[in-house]
């Protein structure tokens, strides 16, 4: 048995009186692509926010590759190899692709106390490579992200996660607001994660999207995990009936 890449033990979270997570246990193994489904308010986002370092659990613990970790900020989560792509897309539209790829993790030529001159040549070269790696073809690393389509933006976000050797990619509703064609593209990216040796957590309330791209389905309701089966042993109807 391999060491799980993520293990959540008895995670609990309250939001001003609301019990958002009720003792959640979840184990994810390397290379799995897990679809996390559930209605609004089921606790999906709370769980994801804990894993991405935006919120901190009130009790319980998170283990990454068998070691207990404290995720106090997005930076902590990224340092442990957990990268999150949000539905609103964590890209700055007014900045170039090359600059977006390296926000907060710029390669430096020279720096003092963490501030200094960026190596822009390297940023350009590496972003071209990173984008090609996810099979996305863009005009130039200097193009503004705001000029890309929604699907292309998610592609760049995924390229960014891969470039920084993330272990786990958390996709929070990445297909919202996308056209059918763009959605197919993003689902293609998710399917491609396994080939790149990445673990994926795909959050969506579109069952079709999850069933098309994941090999395990986890469903949440009222702050608890109520369902957990390999995709091959279940059906959309079965999950629907539960929620």
């Amino acid at each position: 048995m391999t060491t799980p890449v993520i293990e959540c033990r008895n995670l609990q979270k309250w939001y001003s009186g609301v019990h958002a997570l009720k003792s959640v246990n979840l184990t994810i193994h390397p290379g799995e692509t897990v679809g996390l489904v559930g209605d609004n308010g089921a606790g999906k986002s709370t769980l994801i926010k804990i894993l991405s370092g935006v919120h901190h659990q009130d009790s319980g613990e998170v283990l990454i590759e068998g070691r207990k970790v404290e995720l106090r900020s997005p930076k902590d989560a990224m340092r442990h190899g957990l990268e999150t792509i949000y539905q609103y897309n964590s890209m700055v539209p007014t900045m170039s692709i090359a600059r977006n790829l390296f926000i907060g993790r710029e390669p430096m030529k020279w720096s003092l106390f963490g501030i200094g001159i960026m190596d822009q040549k390297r940023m350009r070269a590496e972003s071209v490579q990173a984008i090609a790696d996810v099979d996305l073809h863009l005009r130039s690393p200097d193009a503004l992200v705001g000029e890309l389509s929604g699907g292309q933006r998610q592609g760049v976000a995924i390229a960014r996660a891969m470039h920084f050797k993330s272990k786990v990619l958390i996709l929070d509703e990445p297909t919202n607001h996308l056209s059918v064609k763009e959605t197919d593209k993003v689902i293609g990216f998710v399917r491609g994660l396994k080939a790149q040796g990445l673990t994926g957590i795909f959050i969506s309330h579109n069952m079709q999207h999850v069933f098309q791209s994941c090999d395990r389905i986890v469903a949440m309701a009222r702050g608890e995990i109520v369902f957990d089966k390999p995709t091959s042993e279940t059906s959309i109807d079965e999950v629907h009936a539960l929620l």
Partner: protein
Amino acid sequence: MKRFLKIYLDKPELAGLALLIVLLAVFQVKSNGILLSFENVRGVMGLLPEMALVAIGVTILMICGEFDLSVGSVFALMPMSMAVMLNGGVPFTGAVLLGLLVCAVIGFINGYVTLQFAIPSFITTLGMLFIARSLTIVISGGFPPLLPSDLPTWLFTDYIWQGALFRMSFVWFVGIAALVGAMLSLTNFGNWIRAAGGFNEAAASMGIPVKRVKIACFMLCSVLAGFAGLLQVLRLGSPLPSIGEGLELQAVAAAVIGGTALAGGIGTVFGAIIGTLLIRTIDNGLVLSRVDANWFKFAIGVLTMFAVIANAWMGKLSRKIKVEAHK
């Protein structure tokens, strides 16, 4: 050609530059060649650094998504506090550094209050506009204190050499503009400023300390405004409590004319300088062309609106031009 056009459309400050050249030509003719005469350029270049430094600070702050209305008051408060300290026996260097420290503190308060209480910086700095102006008048005691006559004006406002075109303030301005411009385009900190203004949530989710970045911009903006005030007072030789009134809005106008977006994320130091040059040229050109000087604000108003509309239009046009097709 298409590529060239797109690059041009993506850089609104270049449109400002084109407009500047046109205006220079028009006023040059209307003023019978006085506009670009040595003496006149010399006069304008003496004023330029003061407003340009304020505009640069405001531009940086606008790029990071915030706003500062208090720069005009800080412009007056810094030299006034320095003058009071000088009269109290503090040596010049100490008084200047303490004065700039006062500005940094004001910038910090602006930023901290805005971010901690999640209120619009427009409101915070409107409050600070009144507070800093009031402090200026209170510490002056109602009478502008006299400045000692032995101040090192050679370092700040004297002409670089006898009969030179530029004052020393111009050297400071060029140096500071180059430093701030380099910070914005070459450093990771510049990247964070743009990210914070372009899309705050995205910047925060990538682990950028957004609040600290913004507070640093507020402080930079206030310090630049104070330093600009110091230059003006050393040039005039007397710290009047009323200097800098209305400057905050001219600085915003200069930033916007130079292509800075009010919503944040977009703008350049070069654009701020072009915007300032345009305003100064119009001011000076109208006077030299013997137009009633009261038309000055009218012209700035029209230009500001025109600049924003033109920028939006150029951005739209630019997005339509795809230089190379997608594969």
